[in-house]
């Protein structure tokens, strides 16, 4: 099937990103916007713009029926959901399918199966992909000792009925386990009325590593290497890079293989990301979840592979298959992405909407900027605060870092407060340069250092 007209059901930089590839491929484009986005860069690029509803996203970007009605009403034959908003709503995939629109994403059943944590973990187990190793209920401290010896210290004792960190005790060795087992059980009993405990491996130093895949929906899946997204604040990624060069090659090969096994078994269709927790001290990894959409950080994978992931998404949606084999995908160099959010990192990351009064984007070899922002743009208060992504590609990690630092230094951005200065401080930090980062690093070290500076 040849796609003719694409409906873009998103806004901001990802709408611009999708429109750019769609235009390059010769597709006609329709962008559905809210009343707040009628003068956006995406609205200028699209062949046609329709106003879905008022500014609040619940009445515009988040209404499944509204976007499908708009796509059909404008004669589109495919719909790209971008990320966020409706991208992982199985209802949208299902409604597109029943209305004869090609959904640029997975089947509804796949989104459902992977969106549910329990069924995703079951799928992982069925395909031999490990989650964080743990136990069932421990009847006694002796059972717990035996289990902990098998899991390997450190372990964490958790209340079966618990949650939110309460009733959790870490044990670094048998003596500590002996000493705190009864206490943990008593605390669980008083807090939750249930003293039962189970054990889990405790990951002292973790990195967030994820594998980019695309599947054809018939069981053929390829990967585009992995990304390291360990620079996070409250589980929000700020900086992403590819490849995950802190992870040994052999482990990375096992990661790729695990991601392909899991998504191949699910006959995964279109782009997805398999997220893992990488245990630095044990050099081991555990499955977290699958994100069934294109992700914010996809450009770093594009930079190191030279592939256009949006173009591949559209190809798969058209039913033309992947058109490439695993050995066609070559990894070259290193890429880093910094998210630019209109937030004040020196004031609790308070959202900072407002008008961009000066915007002079950096240029240079290996520099890419994915954005919908420009001078005079008003960052509206209704949506996600991300206004762009600065990407630097180099022959190796050191070169990517130095290109990124130079790009940040020459970026003139005035108006709203942004996270760009923080990104500059992070990529210039010795810990980042030596790649000794964990998922705790930003909150424990990077942010206090920046805020004191």
């Amino acid at each position, binding site marked *: 099937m040849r796609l003719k007209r694409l409906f873009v059901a998103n806004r901001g930089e990802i709408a611009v990103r999708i429109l750019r590839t769609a235009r390059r491929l010769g597709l006609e484009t329709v962008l*559905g916007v809210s009343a707040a986005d*009628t*003068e956006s860069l995406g609205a200028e690029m699209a062949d046609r713009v*329709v106003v879905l*509803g*008022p500014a*609040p996203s619940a*009445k515009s970007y988040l209404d499944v029926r509204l976007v499908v*009605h708009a796509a059909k*009403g404008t004669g589109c034959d495919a719909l790209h959901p971008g990320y966020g908003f409706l991208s992982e709503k199985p209802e949208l995939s299902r409604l597109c399918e029943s209305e004869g629109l090609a959904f640029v994403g997975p089947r509804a059943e796949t989104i459902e199966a992977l969106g549910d944590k329990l069924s995703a973990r079951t799928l992982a187990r069925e395909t031999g992909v490990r989650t964080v190793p743990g136990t069932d209920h421990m009847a006694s401290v002796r059972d717990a000792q035996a289990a902990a010896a098998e899991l390997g210290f450190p372990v964490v004792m958790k209340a079966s009925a618990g949650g939110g960190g309460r009733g959790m005790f870490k044990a670094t060795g048998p003596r500590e386990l002996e000493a705190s087992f009864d206490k943990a059980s008593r605390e669980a009993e008083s807090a939750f009325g249930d003293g039962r405990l189970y054990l889990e491996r405790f990951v002292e130093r973790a990195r967030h590593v994820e594998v980019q895949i695309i599947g054809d929906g018939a069981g053929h899946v390829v990967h585009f290497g992995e990304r390291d997204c360990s620079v996070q604040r409250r589980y929000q990624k700020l900086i992403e890079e590819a490849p995950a060069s802190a992870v040994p090659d052999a482990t990375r090969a096992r990661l790729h293989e695990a991601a392909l096994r899991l998504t191949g078994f699910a006959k995964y269709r279109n782009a997805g990301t398999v997220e893992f927790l990488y245990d630095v001290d044990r050099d081991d990894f555990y499955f977290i979840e699958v994100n069934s959409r294109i992700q914010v950080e996809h450009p770093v994978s594009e930079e190191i592979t030279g592939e256009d992931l949006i173009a591949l998404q559209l190809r798969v949606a058209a039913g033309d298959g992947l058109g490439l084999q695993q050995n066609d995908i070559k990894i070259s160099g290193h890429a880093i992405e910094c998210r630019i959010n209109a937030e004040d990192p020196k004031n609790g990351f308070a959202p900072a909407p407002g008008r961009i009064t000066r915007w002079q984007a950096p240029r240079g070899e290996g520099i890419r900027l994915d954005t919908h922002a420009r001078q005079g743009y008003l960052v509206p208060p209704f949506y996600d605060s991300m206004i762009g992504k600065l990407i630097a590609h180099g022959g190796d990690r050191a070169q990517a870092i130095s290109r990124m630092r130079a790009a940040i230094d020459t970026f003139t951005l005035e108006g709203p407060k942004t996270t760009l200065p923080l990104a500059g401080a992070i990529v210039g930090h010795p810990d980042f340069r030596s790649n000794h980062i964990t998922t705790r690093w930003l909150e424990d070290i990077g942010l206090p250092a920046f805020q004191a500076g």
Partner: protein
Amino acid sequence: MNIQPQDIDALIELFEASDWDELHLKIQDFELFLSTDPKSRAPGTAAPPSVAMAPAALPTAARESGAGVPRGEAPRAVPGNWVAVTAPNLGTFYRAPKPGAPSFVELGQSVEPDTEICLIEVMKLFTTLKAGVRGIVRQVCVEDAAMVEFGDTLFYIEPA
């Protein structure tokens, strides 16, 4: 910070969509006070509020703004007191409750605020729009069964 008219529009929309009673915004010399209570005043001012909104002016308040002009049509001059009824969202506009049935309203017909005047369909989900004002239907701006977008003017009503 340079406040533009569309910024104020956006703020008013945000306020209308919220369940807030009041919004008070001050940026340097610019001050905006919105309230659902017509008697309410901005703190520290004796002057009338910049904008006082009647509570729940359904389905759509008559606001003279560019968004009320259907795309592709030259805006036709209408008397300043005519009230535009605009589309609350994108959808298909129907003048009659079902195919073949008489239209909800005809040109020249008198309407009350709660008179049903058209349907907006979104994927077979139909929403009835009401006139929102007492008066006479002076213009029907959209063809039956056409797709309309948010903010498109559907009717003009001359208030009685």
